[in-house]
């Protein structure tokens, strides 16, 4: 994990000179850049990316805010320990390509992470500027800038590749954990094949996260980068069904990394949840993002609603409710049982949702759905809540206020209350150790499972986390598997 080799060491002469260019006072006097965004009234009419990205001038100014700390705390907030000052200082000196090279030393998908990482809870939360009661350096915006600039230049950095080892390794799932593992193993000279169950490569980056937050074209370029490194992709192939674990051995794979994701949507088991017009966020987002529902000439249908309720307060709930607005909902509301302070969604997502006219019905919990004579949902019964004592998650737990029940007309309900691990792989490999929650049990250092040659990471291990944590798992698993195979 701790590969400290970097193309931008802090004691490089250019960095020393750059530090002297401005005084601390000059740097801290600059206000944090504002991300240029599409106008809310326009963006709800289309799927275009809301955040427009910084231009070069904005990026260089923002990069000059970074103090290039001797002991950069931001890196400790990053699950993959990106050399953050290293890439930012390259931006400041105008060498955007070198900035991208620094990012690629640790991150397989910088253009993705720059868009979807919760920087406010990670790198940016540790920034020195907080001590000065100022807004942190916009690390996420800069990461995206460096990755986008490199991609748009057409001159993409191919990382240094080791000599081919002619050792085959298999990856199950092509989401962030699988892609990150694949990239790291390819760099080490392994012959990598990624097996994907769906007909598109990218996993949650394609079926889950909407285009207005992460354009598919951005993901596609990252995947092409891996292809150029020799990674092979097999779609429509389900390990555990199409191919068994034993088949992989017969095919000569010496190691398997399982990153099959958190498959199963959770429901609340309340009356009326199986009515027509009540669906999981996975179903709704998959229909729209992966299957093209709602676009002309695409075959997959999706139910539309005038009054749409999305149940939950996470990023997936925000993605769903904002998608509903774009699919023509006149009223799109978030129904969340705690208050806005406890919401797990990113601050930016909540802000964007509000700008787009999404209503927030916090401290409410659905208890029943009712339908019209055709079985289509037309009413949501909600219980009003108040906050009680903190629960095991540390958040104040919601408690029902007796008798405070409301009926709210709705014609589409999207349930976004989390996912459970997909049981497909555990069911197919009975000797694999699995937790009570259904996640694959691993050694946290090495990501190795109870089966020696099988490693696992991402949501199949964590149950439900972020893109960057999944990528970190992929990196750790790659390092550990390579070490084991090279013994």
């Amino acid at each position, binding site marked *: 994990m701790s590969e400290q080799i970097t193309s931008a060491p802090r004691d490089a002469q250019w960095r020393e000179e750059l530090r002297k260019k401005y005084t601390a006072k000059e740097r801290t006097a600059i206000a944090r850049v504002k991300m240029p965004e599409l106008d809310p009234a326009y963006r709800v009419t289309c799927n275009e990316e809301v955040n427009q990205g910084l231009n070069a001038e904005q990026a260089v100014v923002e990069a000059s805010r970074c103090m290039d700390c001797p002991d950069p705390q931001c890196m400790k907030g990053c699950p993959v320990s990106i050399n953050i000052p290293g890439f930012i200082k390259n931006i400041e000196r105008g060498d955007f390509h070198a900035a991208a090279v620094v990012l690629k030393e640790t991150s397989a998908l910088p253009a993705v992470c720059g868009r979807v990482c919760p920087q406010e809870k990670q790198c940016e939360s540790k920034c020195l500027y907080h001590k000065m009661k100022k807004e942190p350096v916009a690390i996420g915006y800069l990461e995206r800038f460096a990755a986008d600039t490199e991609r748009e230049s057409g001159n993409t950095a191919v990382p240094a590749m080791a000599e081919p080892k002619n050792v085959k390794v298999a990856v199950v799932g092509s989401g962030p954990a699988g892609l990150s593992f694949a990239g790291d193993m390819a760099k080490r000279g392994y012959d990598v094949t990624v097996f994907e169950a769906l*007909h598109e490569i990218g996993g949650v980056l394609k*079926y889950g996260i909407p285009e207005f937050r992460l354009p598919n074209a951005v993901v596609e370029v990252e995947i092409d980068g891996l292809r150029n490194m020799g990674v092979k992709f097999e779609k429509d192939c389900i390990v555990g*069904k*199409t191919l068994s674990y034993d088949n992989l051995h017969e095919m000569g794979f010496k190691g398997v990394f399982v990153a099959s994701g958190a*498959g199963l949507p959770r429901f609340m088991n309340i009356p009326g949840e*199986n*009515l*027509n017009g009540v669906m999981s966020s*996975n179903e709704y987002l998959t229909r729209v993002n992966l299957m093209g529902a709602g676009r002309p000439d695409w075959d997959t249908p999706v139910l539309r609603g005038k009054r749409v309720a999305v149940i939950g307060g996470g990023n997936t709930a925000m993605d769903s409710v904002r998608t509903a607005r774009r699919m023509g909902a006149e009223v799109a509301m978030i129904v969340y049982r705690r208050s806005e302070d406890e919401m797990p969604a990113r601050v930016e997502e909540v802000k964007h949702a509000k700008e787009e006219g999404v209503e927030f019905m916090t401290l409410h919990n659905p208890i029943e759905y009712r339908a019209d004579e055709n*079985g289509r949902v037309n009413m949501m019964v909600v219980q009003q809540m108040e906050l009680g004592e903190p629960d095991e998650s540390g958040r104040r737990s919601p408690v029902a206020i007796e008798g405070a029940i409301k009926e709210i007309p709705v014609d589409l309900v999207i349930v976004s209350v989390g996912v459970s691990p997909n049981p497909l792989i555990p069911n197919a490999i009975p000797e694999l150790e699995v937790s009570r929650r259904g996640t694959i049990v691993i050694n946290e250092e090495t990501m190795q499972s109870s089966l020696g040659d099988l490693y696992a990471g991402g949501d199949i291990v964590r149950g439900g986390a972020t893109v960057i944590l999944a990528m970190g798992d992929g990196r750790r698993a790659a390092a550990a598997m390579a070490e084991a195979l090279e013994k």
Partner: protein
Amino acid sequence: MNKIVEKEHFSEKVVKLVVEAPLIARSRRPGHFVIVRTGEHGERIPLTIADADIEKGTITLVVQAVGDSSSKICELNAGEYLTDVVGPLGQATHIANVGTVVCCGGGVGVAPLLPIIKAMKQAGNRVISVLAARTKDLIILEDQVREYSDEVIIMTDDGSYGTKGLVTNGIESVIQRETVNQVVTIGPAIMMKFVALLTKKYEIPTVCSLNTIMVDGTGMCGACRITVDGKTKFVCIDGPEFDAHKVNFDEMLMRLRSYN
């Protein structure tokens, strides 16, 4: 991309396709299904595997043109390709020697029933097959069913072939004359509902195989959820076969109309 190597019309709207899918042919068991997509903008739809040939590396699908996507598939000819075929999905049928098994299929439901009839016979059961359709032209795979059945009863709504009446009349005639240890039913949801009601009356264990709306087919979306014994189940990973006496068919019928 999976090549169609053979196509046969069973009736105007029902076609049999033999499709190259060597890995699926090798790993599939009776009861399994695949998800098929036609065209880069196509929909993913579930189809039960009717047969497979490991040596040739092919699987057989029987498709009825009911909606846009199934019609598109039916229009494809031998030599053309299905864009995606993924599987085998679902839980395989539990095959055991239980004694006498009545296998009843309605319409294209006979296609996925055929491998079960075969396996039930090979497991040593006495197999009585009841095939039902609206009219003579819609009775499919009769010869293949006969090959593995001790007896075949044909029922048509209009009496144009076999006995005039519903599938339930055919099943009941068997139940009334001999001991039936198990019933397997595959067909339209409404047919399976009435088969379940009948066999519940006689307390005969009954397995049904359900075909619901699906997107991914791997448990991810939940579009296929139904209620079994009061609990929500996903047809794609918990099924497609369930205890027919515990399935809430009315809810399933309602959910099948989601997109109508």
